[in-house]
């Protein structure tokens, strides 16, 4: 009897201290197999995502938006699908896009989105969209753009003076754009755009953040300072569904679903083992 109890305890200890490589392998399989199979899942659209879609959809053709690409390669898998879906919607609505960034690694990522989307929609650089690149200075840059665009960004990402870019004729500051859309991975990002610009200049702000930052943004949605929000890859997938352009967001949803389910199984299983161990110890 005592031997059986010891054996059970040893098995439970083994289970509670399972080799982490087994866990890694299971997560790896859950993440990669659905991506390789290329499956997609439909989902209902949440209110913050619908809010952003409606706000962009309500803009008139020819109006301007500031697209702040404030992210880096680390968050690219989560945020780039949002950027693609938003640019798809903006180009489809014939809205002119001015992109700028407060994150040094972001301009090439934003440019890659334009390079892929512009030819598909027949859009021309300098006429329909422009990439102003990176400027250091965080909140000071935000306020500076809001007051004088050319003083803050005298040239675009490739060094072309702003005065020689046709679409920027008549655009002197952020007050000339209808909306700021920020795809952000942290600081400086959407929160700072709201704090510095939304209330001060009465400008509509919407955008997307990583899933981990999503909960922090809800107070701004409720207060109306944020017209809509895409949170994590799920937000990107919902937006792709709204614009009917399945991309990496929808493709990633099956992988993310299976990883989440696997983590939930881990938690439940580990807690069962924990309670059994506790009971045996008594």
């Amino acid at each position, binding site marked *: 009897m005592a031997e059986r109890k010891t054996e059970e305890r040893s098995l439970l200890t083994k289970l509670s201290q399972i080799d982490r490589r087994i866990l890694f392998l299971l997560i790896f399989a859950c993440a990669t197999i659905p991506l390789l199979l290329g499956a997609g899942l439909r989902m209902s659209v949440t209110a913050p995502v619908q809010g952003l879609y409606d706000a962009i959809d309500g803009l008139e053709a020819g109006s301007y938006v500031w697209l702040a690409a404030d992210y880096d390669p680390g968050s*690219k898998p989560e945020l780039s699908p949002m950027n693609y879906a938003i640019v798809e919607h903006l180009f489809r609505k014939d809205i002119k896009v001015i992109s700028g960034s407060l994150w040094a690694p972001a301009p090439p990522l934003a440019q890659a989105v334009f390079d892929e989307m512009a030819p598909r929609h027949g859009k021309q650089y300098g006429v329909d969209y422009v990439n102003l690149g990176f400027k250091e200075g965080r909140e000071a840059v935000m306020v500076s753009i809001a007051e004088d665009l050319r003083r803050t960004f005298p040239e675009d990402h490739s*060094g072309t003076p702003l005065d020689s870019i046709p679409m920027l004729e008549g655009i002197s500051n952020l007050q000339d754009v209808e909306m700021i859309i920020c795809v952000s991975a942290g600081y400086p990002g959407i929160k700072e755009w709201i704090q510095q610009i939304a209330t001060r200049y009465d400008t509509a702000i919407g955008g997307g953040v990583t899933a981990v930052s999503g909960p*922090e943004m809800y107070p701004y949605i409720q207060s109306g300072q944020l017209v809509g929000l895409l949170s994590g890859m799920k937000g990107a997938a919902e937006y792709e569904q709204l614009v009917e352009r399945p991309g990496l967001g929808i493709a990633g949803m099956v992988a993310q679903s299976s990883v989440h389910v696997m983590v939930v199984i881990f938690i439940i299983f580990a807690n069962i083992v924990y309670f059994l161990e506790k009971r045996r110890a008594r």
Partner: protein
Amino acid sequence: MRTEIPVAIAFVAGMLMVVSLFVPHPFIAEPAAVMRSWAIIITAFAYVLGVANIARISLHTVKKRTTDWQYKGALVVALVAMAGVGVSRGIQTGGLFDWAYLNMYVPMQATMFSLLAFFIASAAYRAFRARSVEATLLLVVAVVVMLGRVPVGEKLWPGLPAFTEWIMEVPNMAAKRGIMIGAALGAISTGLKMILGIERSYLGSD
């Protein structure tokens, strides 16, 4: 004077920024705009200091052959190579710098970030235990949100996404709002103390 002059500069700069928020008159707005340009330039110089500092520390480690000196060596080589390419051939789209950035730096950093999924799974298995009422509550909510945030949760129970949104919009928002208001009050208090010269730790110890 070593203390008084910086405190006076901080007072003038801080007050100017605060007043410019409420007074749009050019008498205030113009000097505030100039000062913001200075802030942008000064912040940019932080990059120069950062690069110089990391190069100095890394080169010292390589020279002394201390632990992991090889990684520091790789860092210096990468730093010099990327800076060299950027300065000599430009950073324009389609150039060598752009190619190296998109094909080397982007996949490497995305790989580092993706490792989080593995560590979170391992941590969830090893540490997420219902040891108390609070921990059990956290665990249950985490499971609900994790499932409600992916389409499979909707397949399990169609009401799950709406329930997850309720968690985000009510209990989560109440807690977040409390934290944000507390942090904002703290930031205002610290800001005022710095502007008025009560808080001087930013000046350094001597």
